Each structure stands twice: as C-alpha cells, then as structure tokens.
C-alpha cells in the first residue's frame, strides 16, 4: 500500500532507490524483490518443475523406453502408454495392489484428519473463550508438546498398542493394568491414533490463534441472545473458522497421506494393511526389476492430496468477518 502511494508521489524514482531512501530494511528487501523481472521468475519456475515434469512424462512410457532414452525423446517419438498405471492399480501381487493400498491410506488419513480437527477446534474454543482455572498453564503445556519429535514416542506407543501397559505394585506382586491390551499392532487404527495424538498440539495452536481473534462482542451478543457454549461453538465458531479449518485439513491430510515412518512402525509386516506410501516403496522389487512403475504409482499417490487441495481451496475466503463489528 505504502509503496503504491510513494509511487504516485515520485513516479520517476526507481523502486530500489525509493526503498533505500525510506531507511527501513524490510522495505529495502521488498523493493529489491520487486525489482526482479517476472520472466526471470518464470525461468526459475520452469527449472524447478523439470524433475517433476520428467517423472510425469516417464510414467507414461514403457520400461524399455524409460531405460533406453531420456524423457524429452517422447516429444518426438511418442510411444505413450497407460500400461504402467494399469499395472499399479491391478490386483497383481507383484506390481499391483495400489488400489487396495489407497483404500488403506484413506482408512488412515480420513480419521487422522477429521478427529484431530474436531477435538482441536473444541479445545481451541475452550482455551480461547471459556475461562477456567489453569487455562494458561494447560495451554502452554499443550503447545509446548510441539517441540516433542514423534520419533521418540514411536516404540513406546507401539508397545502400548501391542501389549498395553501394566505395573507391578512393588512388594505385593499385584499387577495393575494402566492401559488395556487392545491388540492394535499391525492395524490402520494404530496408525491414525498415533497421527491424531501428534497432530493435536499443532492443531490446537493453529485454531486457537484464529478462534481467539474472533471479536469478543460476537460471543457476548450470543450469550445474551441465549446461546450456551455448545451453541456458540456450533453456530458461530465453526462457520466463522472455515478458512482455518480448511487450511489445517489440507495440511494434516497431506501429512498423514504422505507418512511412511509411523505407518511402517505400527503396521510392521502386515502387508495387507500397507498404505500407498509403503506399497509404492516396495513395488520396485529386489534389484529394481519393476522400478519403471514407480513414477506411475507416485503420481497416483500424489493425485489424491491435490484433489483435496482443490476441493477445499474455495473455503480460503477472506473477509468472512466483514460487517460483524466496526472497529
């Protein structure tokens, strides 16, 4: 805004000198970036896209073609085929099985996205708008869990899922079960439970930031109008938080969909429950005999989060609060 205003005032000065003369470093950097010509950025974008683009092209070429010539040859020689896609989606044990793996991925990613959002939105509302004893301490404790890397908890969690937690009371020999043995090892449930737990601090943090910035008067008006906390949450907070919810949904879905580590730890050797990430990694086979299907598998796997992104993109609306309060 300010830059535009300055432009009108001194049209002949160049962007950089103007920025420098203003004396503010962020303005200076901004002015410097603005002076980069657009065509240069387009070249950067194209360079950046080359690896992905070439993989996409190769996914439509046969194994022989992939091994004998570069991807750019396909522009002149053609030889496009959908065979690789047919292979990975078939139920063949060697190259295929990706269809089933995608279903497993959904069985993990959907609960691992929906459940944290539902819980975190309620928690964020409570942290932001319900006064209760110990609120600040609890919130700081929750958010500080962000610093905990999930890798350190993977094995203890697996043990919990596989055998529960039991404590032998010293002296008496009595065993107290702290967590029952739910026999979850090897199941998608173990995976999405883990994702849910680890998503919570960030989800609460993100949604709290948004929800706490909603105008106070809205909540007061609603309380006077007869709303209880649940009504306020359901009829005001959720509809008004749609942009933040959509942003977190995309983020969390992408993260759980693309996860490999937690899935391989929790599912282990139970191949029937493998999500797409593990399945694709195992497709190449020994000595890379079937590595030509990898790119096709990768693009099938990558297509889903893109669909999610484009489906939710329209919820990134600005000005959702316009007209509510005048400040």
């Amino acid at each position, binding site marked *: 805004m300010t830059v535009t205003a300055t432009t009108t005032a001194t049209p002949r000065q160049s962007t950089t000198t103007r920025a420098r003369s203003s004396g503010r470093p962020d303005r200076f950097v901004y002015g410097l970036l603005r002076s980069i010509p657009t065509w240069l950025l387009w070249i950067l974008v194209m360079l950046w896209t080359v690896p992905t683009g070439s993989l996409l092209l190769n996914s439509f070429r046969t194994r022989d073609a992939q091994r004998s010539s570069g991807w750019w040859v396909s522009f002149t020689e053609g030889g496009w085929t959908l065979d690789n896609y047919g292979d990975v989606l078939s139920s063949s044990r060697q190259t295929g099985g990706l269809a089933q793996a995608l279903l497993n991925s959904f069985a993990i990613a959907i609960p691992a996205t929906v459940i944290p959002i539902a819980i975190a939105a309620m928690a964020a509302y409570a942290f932001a708008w319900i006064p209760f004893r110990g609120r600040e301490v609890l919130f700081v404790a929750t958010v500080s869990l962000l610093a905990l890397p999930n890798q350190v908890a993977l094995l203890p969690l697996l043990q919990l899922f596989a055998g529960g937690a039991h404590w032998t009371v010293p002296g008496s020999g009595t065993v107290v079960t702290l967590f029952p043995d739910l026999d979850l090892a090897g199941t998608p449930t173990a995976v999405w439970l883990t994702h849910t737990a680890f998503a919570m601090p960030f989800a609460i943090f993100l949604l709290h930031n948004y929800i706490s910035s909603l*105008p106070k*008067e809205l909540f*007061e008006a609603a309380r*006077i109008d*007869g*709303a209880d906390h649940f009504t306020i949450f359901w009829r005001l907070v959720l509809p008004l938080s749609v942009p933040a919810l959509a942003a977190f949904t995309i983020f969390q879905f992408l993260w759980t969909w693309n996860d490999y580590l937690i899935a391989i730890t929790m599912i282990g050797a139970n191949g029937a429950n493998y999500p797409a990430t593990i399945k694709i990694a195992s497709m190449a086979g020994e000595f890379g005999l079937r590595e030509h299907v990898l790119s096709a598998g990768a693009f099938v796997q990558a297509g889903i989060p893109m669909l999610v992104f484009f489906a939710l993109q329209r919820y990134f609306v600005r000005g959702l609060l316009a*007209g509510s309060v005048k400040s």
Partner: protein
Amino acid sequence: MAHVSLDRLTKVYPNGFLAVDALSLDIEDGEFLVLVGPSGCGKSTALRMVAGLESITSGTLTIGAETVNDVQPRDRNIAMVFQNYALYPHLTVARNIAFPLSLAGLPKSEIDAKVTEAARILELEPLLENRPAQLSGGQRQRVAMGRAIVRDPAVFLMDEPLSNLDAKLRVQMRAEIARLHRRLEATTLYVTHDQVEAMTMGDRVAVMRDGTLQQTDEPSTLYDSPDNLFVAGFIGSPAMNVRRARLESDDGTWSVHLGHNRLTLADAVLATRPALAGYDGAEIVVGIRPEAMEDASLADSGMPRIVADAELTEALGSDLLVHFHLDAPTVDTGDPDTLDDLDDDTLMIARVDPRSPVRPGDRVELAVDTERLHFFDAETNLAIRT
C-alpha cells in the same frame, strides 16, 4: 417489562482497580435512563454487570422481582445493543434477527412473524436477505436493534450504540431510538459519553465519574441545578464557564469579584441561597452558563456587566458565541475529556443574541444575569443551593 434496581453495585478488577464504586440506581418500569460520563468512568462496566457479562464484586442487582447477581446473561431476559453492532457476519439480516428466537426454540411460523414485524418497525424489509457486510453503518445498527426488540425483553441495554455513526446519522438514529422507546415502552439503560445524547434521550440521566455516581435527575434539573462542579462542567455545550471568585458583602449588598470585574448580585440570589451568607469574604467557585450572559447593548440595563476583549466570535445563526478573556483563575471540573492543553486558561464563552455587533478584537460589555449564576464551595466542589 420490569423495574431494574442496582443496589451498591461494585466492581473491583483482579488487579485491584475499582471500576464501579457502590453504584445505586433505580430504573422504573418503562423508563429510559441514560448513564453518562467521560471515558473510563465505569459506565460501560456498570452496564456490563447488568448484562451479566461482567461479574459483580459486591452489591445487589434486581431485575423485576428477582435478584440476578449470579444468573447467566441468557436467563436475565435482557437484550443488548453493542457499540460495534456485533452482528453475526455469516447470517443474513433475517437470520441475525431470528437468532435469539431460534435459540429459544420458537416455532418457525412464529419466528417469521416476529422477524417480519421487527423488520417493518425498523424499515429493514428490503434488506432481510442481505448479509451484514452489504449494509451501511446505520443499517447494521438497525439490525442490531431488531435483534434486540424481537425478543421482547424485560430490559434493553445499549452500550454507546450511536458512537460509530457519522454525525448526521447519529441525530437521525437518536430520534429513531427515542421513537422506538415510546412505542415499546421498554425499560432501557443507555450508556453514552455524549451529553447531548443523554440530554435529548433520557427520561432521567445519571452522571458518573471515576466509578461513582454524581447525580441522577431529569435532564433539565441536571442542567439547571447541578449538584457539583463536575456535573456542571460536564452537562451543557458549550460548557459552563467556571471561575474562582470572591464573595463580599457591603451593607447588605453582595457582590462577586471575578478578577478585575465585580458583579453585584441581585437580592433574589441571596434570598434563594441563604447559605451563601456564610461565605462572606471567602473564595468560592462561580459558574456562568454561556446563555446567562448577553451583549449589554441588547440587555436590561439593570444587570451588572463584565468588560472584556472578544477574541473570537462564532455565528451559529440562532446565536452568536463570543470567546473572551477574563482574568479570574479557572477551575478544573474533573472532566478528563476536555482538552486541557488547548484550553486557554482564561477563556470564557458567552452565547449572545445574533444581532449583537461584536466582532473579534472589540472591547465588549456583557450583561450577566446573576440569578442564573451557579455557586460552588471551593473546597468540596459541591453546589451551594440552600
């Protein structure tokens, strides 16, 4: 509709700040009471305690026959209009107005009927399907009013509802709210910092300062006989001129020394305020409303005069405001909203007949109607009226 009673209502914030100090007010059934005071005087806190948005530290709040100190806002049968409207941005005008009704679980046909009725009263019918973002400030304020009246509450609470509107719209909405109140006859507690709103809208006006109630009276009483210096300075525009002066008697003739000027008081002044006699020779504070002065050439020749130099004149058409210097020391009335540093210490304002020929720079003689003077104790700042 209900009678509202605040009995020694007190609010102390956790940091120890005393926002409202033992505020006692009775709002009669159907009365429009305006709570007015400078910013930070605790008037909004008082209103929010009545609404239930702020906890009550001590004292008793009664709405109707029920003590509601610990009753949730939604169970107090009140409606509130906020300064910044607080509309639900994702709902249409119709659904904004219907919100409290749908929460109360009323049948849809009844809700529709009430919303239509409210929209008709407030002339919102063509806007019912719009969202708040598409409305102008005045329209939003009317929607907020609609959301309040549709519930038929026992008490209306309004927190500076007009302060975000531009001047012209404010005058219009002021009349609109007054009209609405006459029609609904609802008990209303209206908070504002604008003494013009207070004077024009209130059946009675309560003036607050620093958390304490100064005076509660009908607007004209507040204007004509303020209890203390603060109320005197706060109510009225242009404000009352207040000056330190000395009262002296000479053979039964009383006079006020205002700097170099001496005003002989009419006999009626002492007759109606015998207590003044006790201030013989003492410092007091004299308050002169601008309209208690008149260009001497157009006034009754029997009145005492002030001679001064006019510094500035403002022709309002109906009146002429004359700014002039008087060498008597001014007194701080305690209104934090006045522009102390801009105010020339010795400047006074007189409201004279527009036919007066006074021009800036002229030496002017102003006749003072001493029967309309206000006298205050210089120590306690309380009015001397008896």
